[in-house]
């Protein structure tokens, strides 16, 4: 689902991978792995703050 306005990072994201990637030296190994794990853990922070709002 897309917002009809122009919000910040998309749902599930706190710090976009693209932003993190700029801070890193050129990735020498598996870039896809680095991206996936970053996104998976970043998702937990998004979940945490939104559950604070919704559930607690």
């Amino acid at each position, binding site marked *: *689902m*897309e*917002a*009809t*306005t*122009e*919000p*910040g*990072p*998309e*749902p*599930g*994201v*706190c710090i976009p991978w693209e932003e993190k990637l700029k801070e890193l030296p050129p990735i020498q190994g598996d870039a896809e792995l680095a991206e996936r794990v970053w996104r998976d853990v970043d*998702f*937990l*922070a*998004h*979940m*945490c*703050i*939104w*559950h*604070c*709002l*919704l*559930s*607690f």
Partner: protein
Amino acid sequence: MGQDVEQLYAERMRRYTTAMRNEKPDRVPIRPFVAEFTAKYAGYTVQEVTHDYQKAFDAVRKCAADFDWDAVVGNMVYVWTGLTEAIGLKYYAVPGQDIPAQTGFQYREPPENEAFMKADEYDQLIADPTGFLFNVWLPRVSRDVQPPGEPSTYRSNLSFLKGGMAMLQYFSDFGAQAARLRQESGTVSAISGILKAPLDILGDKLRGYMGLTMDVFEQPDKVLAACESLMPHLCHIALSGADPDKNVPITIWMHRGGVPFVSHETFDRIYWPTLKPIIEEIWSHGHQVLFYAEGDWTPHLRSFAELPEGSIVYHVDRADIFETHRAIGDRFCLSGGIPNFLLSYGTPDQVRECCKKVIDGVARDGGYVLDASAIMQNDTSAENLRALTDFAREYAVY
């Protein structure tokens, strides 16, 4: 797991899901939303089940086994105050700390001039909802979290660490609780995943009810835009907690978006247009939503009927369940409708009479799940809940 218990679980799951699909199962499923009642029944204080969720889980399992219900919520005293204290949340009155040990936790809404979001902060929220929550909202709702720009503190750092780890532990243990309910008593975990309507969450946790009611008059376009910006996040969180097997519903806890809290115009212009697409999106993923319609939402039944057939289960609290059934019973399963005051202060005969009336009136063709009108707290009579259970098991057979 014993084969008999697994068979029992499968029968109950079939009964529960068949009813929720608005079809006719073998009998009316019994799915009581028991909250602080479980503490009273299991011999715990309300403080114990609110602050020590393992005791809450234990109390639920005891009730599920003793009453032999079809489905329960793993912990309906959902707000674990150990977690809220770790984050330092200001807005809860904790049993045994702020209020008596036998009183259910309370949500304390701040005065209008101390709302967690100010009237002139809509643009900030709209631009980046997640950033707003971390940078503006959390430092205001927590006693410990320092806002950006302020020196960090030991307690501020700890609140993130302890809060995050506690949440992960709590949610992980819900999985184990569901497995134990299944293995020990063949009981189905009734719901999975949480949703709130954008306007409700704006009123509940951000602007407060008083602030929101002024905003819908003074800056309605901002309120609408804020709700729109919350939509994708709320939808995402709902789906992330949904039952992967698509058996049990995501629950929406409906608070202040209906008459008499807001006008028909606000409902039609803001509440419904920013909730309906979320329900449709969730349904497109194959999940039902349980509308836990707290209060009386009868004036809005026509709007709810716009949703795809079978996409929701509609829980009746203070509304007339027979009128609700006439309005939307052909499209959606209903649940609830047994008044809490009757379960607390009535007699077993009165409870049986009420159950008979409701079952005869709305469950003849299936599509009904037996439950009280609202979550059952520690004023609920165990004798009356036993009467409800035994009567339904005997009478409500198709």
